[in-house]
């Protein structure tokens, strides 16, 4: 309470732990990563294959009902070379020593793209429409990190 004496600003930490329900679709997707498989969900109405899988197709407003294996190859839809990264809890940016390439990647057989890292690539060589392939962790643990990145083919 004495902290409020002659003080103009207070630093306030908000530290709270939430428990998120991952949902059946994402749970199955992550389990698939442990088997080095990329799984999508097909909409029974518009036939789009959504990756990561979603339980409901927003466009048709119906539940997806079929699992489809996609990839491991894919195409770069868009990309960015990050020269900075977020500076953790402080916010703002700090410079990176080695730039990181992030891409929107559309796995073969999917109708959607998702954001992931493009590794083993010279940032100057990365381009839209470039072909890439999933690179997996040596020891899969049933986590998102089992899919390490995509590398150019």
């Amino acid at each position: 309470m004495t902290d409020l004496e002659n003080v103009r600003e207070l630093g306030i930490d908000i530290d709270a732990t939430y428990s998120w329900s991952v949902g059946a679709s994402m749970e199955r997707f992550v389990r698939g990563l442990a088997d080095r498989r990329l799984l999508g969900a097909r909409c029974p109405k518009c036939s789009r294959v959504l990756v990561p899988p979603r339980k409901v197709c927003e466009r048709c407003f119906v539940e997806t009902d079929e699992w489809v294996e996609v990839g491991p190859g894919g195409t770069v839809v868009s990309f960015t070379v990050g020269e900075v990264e977020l500076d953790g809890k402080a916010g703002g940016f700090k410079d990176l020593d080695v730039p990181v390439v992030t891409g929107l990647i559309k796995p073969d057989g999917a109708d959607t793209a998702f954001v992931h890292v493009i590794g083993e690539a010279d940032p100057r060589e990365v381009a839209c429409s470039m072909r890439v392939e999933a690179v997996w962790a040596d020891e899969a643990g049933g986590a998102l990190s089992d899919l390490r990145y995509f590398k150019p083919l």
Partner: protein
Amino acid sequence: MDRRVAVVGYAQTEHRPRIDSSREMMVYRVTRELLDSAGVTKDRVDTVVSAQNDFLEGRTISNMRTVGPLAAFMKEETKVEMDGAYAALYAYARVRSGLHDVALVAGESMASCYPAYLPAVWALDPTFDRPNGFLNELSAGALQARSYMERYGVSEEQVAGVSVKNLGSAAGNPKACRSIPGIDLAAVMGSRALYSPLRELNCYPLTDGACALLLAEEKTALEMTDRPVWIQGVGSSSDTYYLGERNLSGCDSLAAAADAAYRMAGISDPRAEIDVAEVHESFSHEELIFYEALGLCGEGEGAGLLESGATSPDGDLPVNPSGGALGANPLCATGLIRIVESAMQIRGDAGDHQVPGEVATALAQGQNGLCAQQNVVFILRGQR
């Protein structure tokens, strides 16, 4: 139901990297200025709709503490956790419906208080995008920029032209947070590289600031002012959250919002009928995408429209003569500022950034979410 609704007053704080004030006093001062400049006592206000965000404020139900500063004591009051143009949209609906005659709208935030860029990270899908940690609002904006530039063969220099126009225009706007008189292409292209193709001067500045607006139904509006600015059309639309499912080289939800607003306002040729536009470009490339989504030019013709000079302050369709969001971007206020700046242009109140010639019809846009997921369009008119 044909109840017309008008803007009868507005106020903005100066937008700055750091306003030396408590949040409550910042909100009080902008509300006080709004009521004083409109010559209206707080008792005339029936309802208050604010735009604030709990994450930005660092407390839940953030409007609990702004009841007083917003002149909302013992009134019907609520908030949206979105851009201020949404607060204006809902306030408009309340007045248009006949539920209330006079609505006060406000939007505010202080970037000097919250951890910069983290709010958008905490908006990400918590089961994939957030734990992967690859995405934030700037990297997402960069993916959007690349999609657009790749599809239509637009260069970084062409995109930088938006920053040159807007940061130069901001020099005429004393409220702007970032203005660079005499800025040239080299300054933009030489600014700090963040996420390619985005550089620092392609991106909005972290801003403290607040904006407020007073709306009234026709009879009350005409009592309150002899210079009402009529809301002739509104439209709003939301696209999917998922970037990989969206058309990032365009802005489908903005096109849908504009269609609805144009239909309501009876606009068939926006390029010819709109005299000035204030758009909510968080990044320079977004302004080009928005030209196209608003039907001010054809697909892929945004850079050409910019280069023709039409959207410069002295062009025949000035866009963002205030400097736009590249000049000042207090989150939750930015879209509301677009509405206020449009009304100022119609009234001839914009001072050093007033565009030449009469402004009869103006367009204002607000947006929300990564890569402009959600959009609102207002059409304003000066004459009766």
